[in-house]
């Protein structure tokens, strides 16, 4: 019984490594889903619109934890394939944050002035060209601040993968708490909170850099 301070730090660092990895993977996955679904919801092709809207409604309308449990416990029964906690965790987080991101993408794309679309049509741009050369460059900067908030939300949400037995930071913290003396609980959980806070600050800084990059590329400023 009991753990030393070094053991606590070691285990938390190990968990933080998993948390960082899961958060990065699912943020990238979520961004892809967000663009696919956000663009899809404005498509002229009705099934694409329908699919996007259903996806957003389901994943924004239910709890992330329910989604994770469903992917981990129910889906394998349905399709007969075992899904590892890592796969279920990344998939669940991506799908969840992607649904929130889709609304951001949709809103930003819709905020581009109507005249720009008419001009693109007058210049005989294809829908793909209009999207790539007119809509996205003008709206991407507007997406950045909400994307930053979603990235932080995703980092915090990643703690829930511990409940499907993925050994992330929250999992390590709970495991340590079980092994340690009760008097060490405050140290373990306090440090865990601090770890998450520092990671959130780093993530915020990274999103700020990304924002700067898009500001430079697009020649527009983030409205605050």
């Amino acid at each position: 019984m009991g753990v030393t301070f070094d053991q606590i730090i070691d285990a938390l660092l190990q968990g933080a490594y998993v948390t960082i990895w899961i958060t990065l993977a699912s943020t990238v996955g979520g961004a892809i889903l967000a663009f696919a679904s956000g663009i899809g919801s404005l498509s002229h092709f009705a099934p694409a619109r329908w699919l996007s809207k259903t996806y957003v409604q389901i994943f924004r309308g239910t709890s992330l934890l329910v989604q994770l449990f469903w992917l981990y416990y129910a889906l394998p029964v349905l399709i007969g394939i075992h899904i590892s906690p890592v796969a279920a965790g990344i998939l669940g987080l991506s799908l969840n944050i992607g649904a929130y991101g889709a609304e951001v993408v949709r809103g930003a794309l819709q905020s581009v002035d109507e005249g720009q679309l008419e001009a693109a049509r007058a210049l005989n741009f294809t829908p793909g060209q209009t999207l790539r050369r007119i809509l996205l460059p003008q709206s991407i900067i507007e997406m950045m601040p909400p994307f930053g908030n979603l990235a932080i939300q995703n980092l915090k949400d990643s703690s829930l993968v511990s409940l499907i037995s993925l050994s992330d930071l929250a999992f390590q913290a709970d495991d340590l708490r079980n092994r340690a003396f009760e008097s060490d609980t405050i140290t373990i959980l306090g440090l865990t909170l601090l770890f998450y806070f520092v990671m959130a600050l780093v993530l915020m800084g990274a999103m700020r850099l990304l924002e700067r990059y898009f500001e430079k590329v697009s020649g527009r400023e983030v409205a605050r």
Partner: protein
Amino acid sequence: MLFGMSWDLTNDWTFAWSIIPMLLIGMKITIIATIFGFLIAMTLGLVFALARSAPTRFISWPVGFVIEFVRDTPLLIQLFFIFYVLPSSTGITLPALEAGILALGVQYSAYCSEVYRAGLQAVPNGQWEAARALNLSTWQTYRDIVIPQAIPRIIPALGNYLVSIIKDTPILSAITVMEVLHVANIIGDRTYRYMVPITMVGILFLILTLISAGFVKFIEKRLPRAGIAVK
């Protein structure tokens, strides 16, 4: 058997039908946690908002830090902190549900405080100047001028957080609160059938969030744009 009720394992449909009453018992806890968590969040959020805009930095900066810290750390760990650290360090032992409600309240109070602040700041400065010109006291200005105009901005944002709280309540299952997801898990553990109960919980949440989102929209539409008198 659960809560003295038994399930019918003949097929998936009879199974689904037979566990509805059990899930509804869990749903009751979900709703209780949501309502009380939201009440704490609204009240504590107001305290945070006022403290953050306090005239002295000795109050406003630490409070600002606390709000930021709470916003940037996961609810799950805050929940563990309240449930496991509070008893060992202060001797106050909270039952799981109460600890969960407190954690929800604290996390969302940080969000609510920002809502209040933004709502109050959105009232144009000219309103304050006009109130001063009319010789209204600070209290009168808040009560009759500022707050009535801030309310239509604050309520929709608070409503969105209400929906978010509903969706965060399953996290309380981590400290054994018998909310709806936990009930579904127990049913799954005992019958080795997870698909039906967890899918039903998903559907129940979808219904609950649709209803509450509709309710928020309804209130939003009813709000006069110009504001509501507090009297």
